[in-house]
Each structure stands twice: as C-alpha cells, then as structure tokens.
C-alpha cells in the first residue's frame, strides 16, 4: 500500500472496482460459482486531489464516473488498490468509521438533490449536525449561516416542494457545506438545471474551492467542467486523459 501524497486530501492508487454479476442467484448454487463474468467498472485508477482543487470527471454513461465518485466519497470500497481520504485508507475502515468519515470530511451533492420533503430548508441543511449531536439552537445558527452563503437566507422555512430546482440544489450544497468538509463530491450537480441556474450553482463550488475545500465533480456537461483545474476522462472504466 503506497502512502498518500503529503498535501493530498484525496488520493487513489491503482484503484480497481469489479462487480460480480448474478451474485444473488449464484449464491444458492452448491459450488457458489457464477456462470456470468465479473464486470470491471474501474481499472487501475490513480489520482490526487489537494485542498482548493477542483477536479472534473467526464465520460459517457457507463464509463465509471459514478463508481469513482462513490469510492472517493467513501460510499464504497475498491476491489483492489487504495483510496485515502484525509490521509485515511477507506479499505481499513469499518462501515461505521466510513460513515463518520463522510460526516466529518465529505459533503456529497447529488443530481436529484435528495432532500427530505417534510423538512424546511433550514432543517434539511442541519441534518448532518443532528448526527454530530449539535444542539438545536447551534444547528439552526450554523445552517442559517450557510443558507445565507448560498443565497437562500430568505427561504429557510420553505420545504423542498416550495423551492425551484436551482434552489433545491443550493439547499443540497448548503447541506454538504454545513459540516465544513475537506472535500465536496458532486455527481452531475447541474444535470437537472437550466444553464443560468447551473452557472449560479457552479459559482458556489468555486467559492468553496476558494475556501480550500477540494471539489470533485462528475459531469457530461462541458460548461460545468470548465470550472475544473483538471479534468479526468474515463471510458469503459479506464482513464484516457493521461
């Protein structure tokens, strides 16, 4: 196992991720063997991200973008190779430790926002602080401050259903920022938004990077990737930009 680069908040070395097809079915076979081959979603990926970097990941559907994001967000672990997040190898961590790592060091932004429809914007943003055991008043103070940062200071009491798509994505970004993470992982963050709203969202990522937060965003969209310092291109699970 190679050590991570000294300044890196995120690094991958020789990361490969394969999935066994038909596993559920073949589990019941007496020899446990699958009659279908494994699928390699990612193969031999190396990368390093430093604080304040914006790393873009591009590639067609099925190229392995989401798989790589899941590994970088500690939502999954590689089949082989190593992923270090803030210096910690994810393969050595238990599920509970990885959850704690996500809570403390990573903010994740999804294409479809995934906000809790029953909660107002303020409570949605404050959710990670619930897990941290922060008191209600402090939670609301911190969440309110971040909502002001993303331009939703006047919309705190609105539920997701009362917000536009762009506003919902701002709430999702605020939720990712509220724990002051070292890394933000964003999967197609402007995929559901119009051009103008998408541009506003990208400004928020640039602002986060200016505050030394590393940003990794995957997208099909060239204008979105234009804010990246570097773009990593994938095809069929392999890196083709190098």
């Amino acid at each position, binding site marked *: 196992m190679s050590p991570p680069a000294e300044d890196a908040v995120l690094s991958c070395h020789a990361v490969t991720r394969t999935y066994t097809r038909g596993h559920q079915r073949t589990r019941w076979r007496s020899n446990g063997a699958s009659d279908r081959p494994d699928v390699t979603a990612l193969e031999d990926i190396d990368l390093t991200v430093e604080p304040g970097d914006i790393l873009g990941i591009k590639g067609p559907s099925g190229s392995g973008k989401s798989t790589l994001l899941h590994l970088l967000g500690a939502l999954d672990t590689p089949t082989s190779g190593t992923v270090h997040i803030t210096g910690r190898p994810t393969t050595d961590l238990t599920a509970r430790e990885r959850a704690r790592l996500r809570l403390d060091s990573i903010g994740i932004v*999804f294409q479809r926002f995934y906000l809790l*429809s029953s909660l107002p914007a303020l409570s949605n943003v404050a*959710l990670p602080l619930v897990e941290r*055991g922060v008191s209600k008043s402090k939670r609301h103070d911190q969440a309110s401050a971040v909502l002001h940062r993303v331009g939703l200071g006047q919309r705190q009491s609105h539920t997701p259903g009362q917000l536009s798509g762009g506003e919902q994505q701002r709430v999702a970004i605020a939720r990712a920022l509220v724990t002051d993470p070292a890394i933000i992982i964003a999967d197609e963050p402007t995929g559901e938004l119009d051009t103008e709203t998408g541009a506003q969202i990208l400004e928020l990522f640039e602002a986060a990077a200016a505050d030394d937060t590393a940003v990794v965003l995957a997208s099909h969209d060239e204008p979105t990737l234009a804010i990246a310092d570097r773009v990593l291109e994938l095809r069929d699970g392999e890196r083709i930009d190098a």
Partner: protein
Amino acid sequence: MRERLTRVRSLVGLGGRLVAQRLRHTAPRRTAVTILGIAFAVALCLTVSGVSVAIADQGSVAGSNVDYWIVPEGESSSTLPVSVGGPRFGDVHAVADRLTSRSDVVYASPVSMQLLQLSHRGTTEYVIVAGVVAHDGLTVAGVNTSALTPGDPHYENGTYDGPWTGEVVISDGAGALLNATPSDSVTVRGQATSTREFTVAAVTDGGESGFGDVPVAVMHLSELQTLTGATTSDTADQILVASTNPNIENDLAGVYAHSDVVTRSDTGLTSVTDSDLALALAAAGFIVALVVGVLFVATTLGLEVTTDRRLWATLSAIGFSARSRAFLLFAQIGLLALVGGVLGVILGRLGVFAANTAVGTVFENTLVAVYPIEFVGLGLTMALVVAVLTTPYLLWLTTRGTVTDTLKT
C-alpha cells in the same frame, strides 16, 4: 455523553416530524391503518385479558381482610363458587374454633356456598347463599358480615339448638333483584326443610371479589346447614383465615388431609394463574394480539420503508451511522405504537364494556370482563412489544440494496 443525548433527542424529534408528514401528506391512509392495527391488537389483548381476569377473580370469595383460605385439594380459587357437590370439609365449626384460639389467628370462619331460592313480595330468584361464622370485618363474596350477630349462635356446640337469628345480609345485586331493603323479610327455600323466613340485616355493596352484581346472600353457617341438611357432618366448602403470621401457611395445610391453602397474594390479577382456563384465555389473547399487531405493523410500515429507501440511503450518504438510522426508525415505530397503544387502551375499555353489555342482555347482573387500571400499562407495554418485535424486520428492509445502487435509481 451530552452529545449523544442531544443526538437521541434530535432523532426522536426527526422521527416525529417524519411520522407527522406521513400522516398528513405522503401516506395518511397507510399510517392510519398502522395505528389502527396496533390499537386493534391492544384492544383485543385487553378485552380477552379482561375476561380471563374476571373468570379468575370470581373465585375470590374472601374479602381483602382474609389472608388464607383452606380449600379441598384440586379446587382452585376460581372454582369455589361453583363447588357445590364437590369435596367438602367436615367438622368445620370445631376446626374453625381451634384455629381462632391460636394467638396468631384473628379469626377463622368456615364458608359454605349454596344456590338457593329467595322470595320477597312475590318475586323469587336464585341467589348464591354463603354460610359463615360471623366476625366483625369478615367479608365474604363481597358482602360484609358485620350486620350479623357475631359467631354462629344456632350451632351451640354442635347441638344446633342455639337461638335462631334468622338474619341475612344481601348484596345490592340481590336487593335489586328481590326489591328488598333492610328489615324486610325474605323467604329462603332450603333443600332439606320447608321454607324459612329471614330478616334482611343489611344490604351491602357486592362489587368486591369479582362477584359484581351477582346476587349473594350471607347468613350464619349453622342456619344454612339446617336449611340444606348439612348438619350431620358439619360440612363446608372452605375455611377462611385472617392471620397476623406470615408463616402460618404450612400449619394451615396440615389442618385437613387433601387440602390446599390459597394465600391472599394468589388473588386479584395474580390469581389468573390459578385457573387454567383464565391463563389459557389470557395467553391466547396475548399471542393472537401480538401476532396481529406485528403483522399489521410489519406489512404497512414495510411498504413505507421500501418507499422511503432513498431517505435511508441519503441519510447514510451524509454520514448517519447504521445505529442512528436504526434509532430513527425505532423512534418512528415507537411513536406510532404509542399512539396506537393509547387508542387501543380506550378501545379495550369499550370492548370490555361491550362484552358486559352484550352478556348483560342475556344474563342479568353478570360481569364477564373487568378492566383494572393496570390494563393501561399492559396495553402500552403490549404496543411497545409490537414495536420492538417489528423493528428488526424493518431494519433489515432498510439495508436491502446498497446506498450507491439506491441513489443511482
């Protein structure tokens, strides 16, 4: 520690908001069915338990001031009122005198129970008649015997030549049936002799000991024995003993061969175990209600959890640990169970009322089910048990599929 407490409190609050949202907007019908399912299960359990407690409690012929009663072997306390014709004790006056002479016995009284006809002003009804050796403070079948002349004057050392008091104390149920009040004369038709006149010494509340409004009359034992032809062997069904000695049980067990001693702690709710029928009823009610409740909650909330799989995946993605997610789920189930439990306690009370009303239309003055205050706790505990038993299955549902797969779809 403080952090953990804050987290627990916040998770309960979050669970409450999710339940409220589900009830108001996302799945009101399904959530209502879940609550009603729990309520139905709890109400079913309480109603059946109410019947079983009533069955078991009907055997408690003694009042709360009696500590022990000696009964023929194999007779549980629940069978005492219907033990006419069963094994009986002989020489009961002598035995009771011997026991009363002990310094640690306040009093001892034989009790004989018979079903006899009582008439008053043209009304004739069957009434449970208890014969006792009267003592201040002695209550039998819910009827206080203080209004009777103390002792058993007619017995007169076994000669049955003593003064005939002709006194009877009747329960308010019997009073209502016969329209009799104190000082009225009632006619008692015995089995061995012709009818005899008795004077109503008092009408007392017969609600104690599970007899409820069942008509009961209490008179001196020797007078009842004379009426029923039980003077030859001086027989009775049981002997009640009030004692200051908590260790007297073994001594009492030796008074008669082939006898059992039932203690006061065997009465009330705990006496359910004295009756196989009552125990079987209670156990069946509890198990059926538990299965119904668990199936209801597992089915309806199972659908909810499956629908909400993105919520659970999102919480996992933003860093909620499996333990916190499990607690959040349990908080939601627990809140639903609490609401269902409260509703079930109310429905259970109505169930007991309905059972008594329905039976009352056929058999007058009969209580088939009771609803002691402890049932509130039992109902809420039952709801909690349903929640606890359902949680593992629902937790398993939340872990089906990976976070990455769920958030991809």
